[in-house]
């Protein structure tokens, strides 16, 4: 049990493969204990990408959400309100492992037949895992002049890649 806990804190998954009896019928069977230690990766989402609510006027503009702070910088023509946040993910794995992060560079948001485009960026392109690692995703929403009001939805891909 102690060993298992120790291995886990090193960021590894323990998969006990089996107790393999060398001779099942022998009266005094020898048993080999085998355990395979696997490198693991855990990705958990800790926050959603939230631009808050945007009120649009006759001219459009950009609303830029900082990946670092989660704050929105709003063009003069727009009124931005509400709580905002960058998407945030935590990554746990074997210490010292290198992972690359890819995020869709653009995403199309739809509300019925109306659409908007956002460009996205990750806070980190590469992480060398050291424990308690995380990254965030922010972006810039291009709001058109007289953009129709509505609930705009879109999906974007975030992938943690092992080489």
């Amino acid at each position, binding site marked *: 049990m102690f060993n*298992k*806990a120790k291995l*886990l804190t090193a960021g590894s*998954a*323990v*998969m*006990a*493969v*089996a107790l393999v009896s060398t001779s099942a019928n022998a009266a005094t069977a020898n048993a080999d204990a085998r355990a395979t230690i*696997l*490198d*693991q*990766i*855990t*990705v*958990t*989402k*800790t926050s*959603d*990408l*939230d*631009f808050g*609510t*945007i*009120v*649009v006027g006759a001219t459009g503009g950009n609303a830029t959400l900082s990946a670092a702070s989660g704050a929105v910088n709003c063009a003069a023509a727009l009124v931005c*309100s509400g709580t905002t946040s960058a*998407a945030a*993910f935590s990554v746990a794995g*074997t210490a*010292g492992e*290198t*992972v*690359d992060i890819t995020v869709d560079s653009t*995403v199309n*948001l739809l509300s019925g037949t109306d659409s*908007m485009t956002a460009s996205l960026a990750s*806070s*980190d392109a*590469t*992480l*060398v895992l050291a424990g308690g690692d995380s990254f965030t*995703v922010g*972006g810039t929403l291009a709001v058109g002049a007289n*953009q129709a*009001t*509505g*609930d*705009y*939805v*879109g*999906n*974007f*891909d*975030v*992938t*943690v*890649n*092992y*080489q």
Partner: protein
Amino acid sequence: MSRLSNSLCTFLAATMLAPLPAQAAGDLLVAPTRVVLDGVRGTEVILNNVGAEPATYRISLELRRMTPDGKLDEVTKEEANALEQAALSMIRYAPRRITLAPNQPQAIRIGVRPPQALPDGEYRAHMLFRAIPKAQPVAPQAGEPQGLSIALTPIYGVTIPIIIRKGALQATAAIANGRVETDENGHAFAFDLSRQGDKSTYGEIRVTKPGLDKPLLVARGIAVYAEVEARTVKLPVPAEVAAQLTGPVKIEYFESHSAGGGLIASAQTALK
């Protein structure tokens, strides 16, 4: 079967002991993080739902090509070259879609069915594990009829390489041009890693400085895939490490422990 369920139970118990952060639907654990097969014998990859809600995951094979800056670019199945098509057609895996309760692990079985006349070489695809998002409830817009409400949902996942080797393959590597780069994202240690031969190289980078008993930087899991002859390796470093990255340093590239841990390449360099 008992072997599998036995291992899964142990794995489940082990996973539940691990401290987990706040959980969302679609959170996932994947182990191992790299698969190399050099025969017909297959293997298993464990996928575990570490979220708080049941989630449906899709497992797919994707193609990626390494770029000169070390990124993995997506390649569509239509753009695939002969090597990539061969990799896709010989890798068998199941299941491809699975709904898991929280903390329920599932073994994904991976096998290889190489065609008779398969030429020697290294074949690779990347296995993508990703939760399928649930249908989104439309956010209510009470009180702010003039506004736009925006719901941007991340679909997040993990890719791991599945590598198949046939024949006696060789590769060598060389390190050059060690440097510290600083931009708005902070400091990074960068160098050029070149490769020759008919397979990829993979291993651990260690940067040491004379007089210091511990390496300044250790980064595991650095590959140069066979489709590139050289790549830039750029590793983020904290400011206190960047401050020490001056003067003479030794950059070494070791095989992973499971591959023997031998030295692949090393270089001495003087940093500015």
